[in-house]
C-alpha cells in the first residue's frame, strides 16, 4: 500500500524508514555505483533527507519498504539546482507548483506494479496540490521503467553514458492520464483516494477540473 509521509511523520515507522534507507543503499551505491553517502547503519541518506521532504513509499505486507521517492518544492533548495544545474540546459525551473522528485527507488525483487503505484502517487500529488509539473533526477534504468509504465518524462538534459547516464526531466500533469495509470498500477480509484486520505486527513477532490 502507498503511504505519503514527511520525514517527520516517517519517524513513527522505523521499520519502513530503515528498510527504505537500506534499499536506497542497495540501489544507488551497490547497483548504480553512485557516490552516495552511507552511514554506519548502512543507510543511504543525504542533506535533502534532512529538509523534511515528503516521501511516497510503497509498504510491503510485512511493513518494510518496497519502493519510494522523495519530493521537495523547487521554490526551495533542490538536488537538481545544487548538483545538476548544467542538465537544465539554461533553464532554472523554480516554482512552488513544480516539485522535484528524487531517489526513485525500487526494492530488489519488488514487482513492476510498485513502480506503477509510485507513478500513480506522483500524479495524485499533482492533482491534489494543483502542481503543474514534477522535475526529476533519474538514471538510465529508470527511463526504461518510466517508459514501460507509460509515464515517460521529457528529458531536459543528461550526463554520462550507458548505464551511468543521469538525466533531468519533467512530467506534466494531465487529468486524462489518470485512468491509464490506475489500470497499469492495477489499483482502483477509490483505493488510491483512501491511501491519500489516510495520509493527509482528507481525500483528493474527485472532480476533474478545479
Amino acid at each position, binding site marked *: 500500500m502507498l503511504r505519503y509521509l*514527511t520525514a*517527520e511523520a516517517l519517524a513513527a515507522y522505523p521499520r519502513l524508514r530503515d528498510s527504505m534507507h537500506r534499499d536506497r543503499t542497495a540501489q544507488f551505491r551497490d547497483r548504480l555505483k553512485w557516490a552516495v553517502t552511507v552511514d554506519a547503519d548502512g543507510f543511504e541518506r543525504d542533506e535533502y533527507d534532512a529538509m*523534511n521532504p*515528503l516521501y511516497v513509499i510503497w509498504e510491503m505486507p510485512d511493513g518494510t519498504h518496497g519502493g519510494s521517492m522523495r519530493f*521537495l*518544492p*523547487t*521554490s*526551495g533548495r533542490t538536488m537538481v539546482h545544487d548538483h545538476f544545474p548544467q542538465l*537544465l*540546459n*539554461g*533553464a*532554472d*525551473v*523554480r*516554482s*512552488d*507548483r*513544480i*516539485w522535484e522528485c528524487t531517489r526513485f527507488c525500487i526494492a530488489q525483487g519488488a514487482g513492476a506494479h510498485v513502480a506503477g503505484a509510485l507513478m500513480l502517487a506522483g500524479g495524485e*500529488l499533482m*492533482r*491534489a*496540490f*494543483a502542481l*503543474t*509539473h514534477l*522535475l526529476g533526477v533519474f538514471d538510465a534504468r529508470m527511463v526504461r521503467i518510466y517508459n514501460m509504465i507509460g509515464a515517460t518524462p*521529457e528529458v*531536459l538534459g543528461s550526463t554520462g553514458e550507458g548505464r551511468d547516464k543521469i538525466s533531468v526531466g*519533467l512530467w*506534466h500533469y494531465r487529468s486524462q492520464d489518470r485512468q491509464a495509470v490506475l489500470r497499469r498500477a492495477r489499483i482502483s480509484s477509490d483505493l488510491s483516494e483512501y491511501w491519500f486520505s489516510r495520509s*493527509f*486527513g*482528507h*481525500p*483528493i*477532490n*474527485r*472532480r476533474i*477540473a*478545479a
Partner: protein
Amino acid sequence: MKRLKLDQFLSKLGEADALEQIQGLIVGLRNELRIDHIVYHWVSADGEQYGFGTYDPQWVQHYVDQEYLRIDPVVLGCFQRFHPVDWKRLDWSSRAARGFQKDAIAHGVGNQGFSVPIRGPNGQFALFTVSHATDDETWAEFTQSTQRDLILIAHFLNQKALELEKGRAPEPVRALSPREIDALTFLAMGYSRGQVSEMLSISEHTLRAYIESARFKLGALNTTHAVARALAEGLIIIGGAARAATGNWPGRKVPRAAAN
C-alpha cells in the same frame, strides 16, 4: 466551487489594486463557501506579520499581544511542510498549543481548519487558511470538494500580496534564466505557445514549465502578468531593440536573397 465562480474570483483578484478590494473579495468568497473564516497570513523572517481576512480584529490583536506566532501549531506546522494540511494533522499536544486552541475557539476561529503553506520567491513564507465550526465529517466533505480551488486561490492571493506589498518582499526579483527570458520575450512579441516551443525546440509542456517558473520568480498572477512585469523590470526587451538585434529572430523576414 463552480469553475466559473473560481474564474470570476481570480479575475477580480487580478484587477484588484488595493487591500480593501481584496478584503471585500475575501468576505464575498467566505460567504460563497459558507464557512466562518478565510485568512491570509504572511510571516516575514524577522517575525513581522501581515495579512487580511475575516477573523475578528480583536482576535488578531490578541494573537499579536500574546505572541501566539511562537506557539501556533498551524504556523509552525506549515513552516515545516510544503503541502496543505488539515489542522487535525498538526501537533496540538503541548499545553501551550491546547491553551491557544481553546482561546482561538473562544474567539470564533472555529474548531476545524485547513491551511496551505506558501513559499514565495526568495524564501518568502505565508499561509492561507480556511476555518469553520463544524463536525469532522462535514469538514472532510468541504475540504475534499474545495481543496484544489483553495490551493489555487492561496497562490494567487500571495502573488497579489507580493505585488501590493513590494517593500515587504525579501529581495528584488530573482534573475530569470536564459530559457525563461527567451520564452517570455517571444510571448511578449505575440507568438503563441506552440510557435514559441517550436522556436526553442522544446515541447509545449516543457515551455509551460519555463513559463510557470518565470511567473513564480516574478511574483506574477499569470502569464500575461509575468510578461508585463518582465517588460516593466527591463528583464526582457522587445520592439525596436529586438528588431535591431543581430541574430535570427523568429518571424523576421531575413533578407537572405538580398544579402547574398
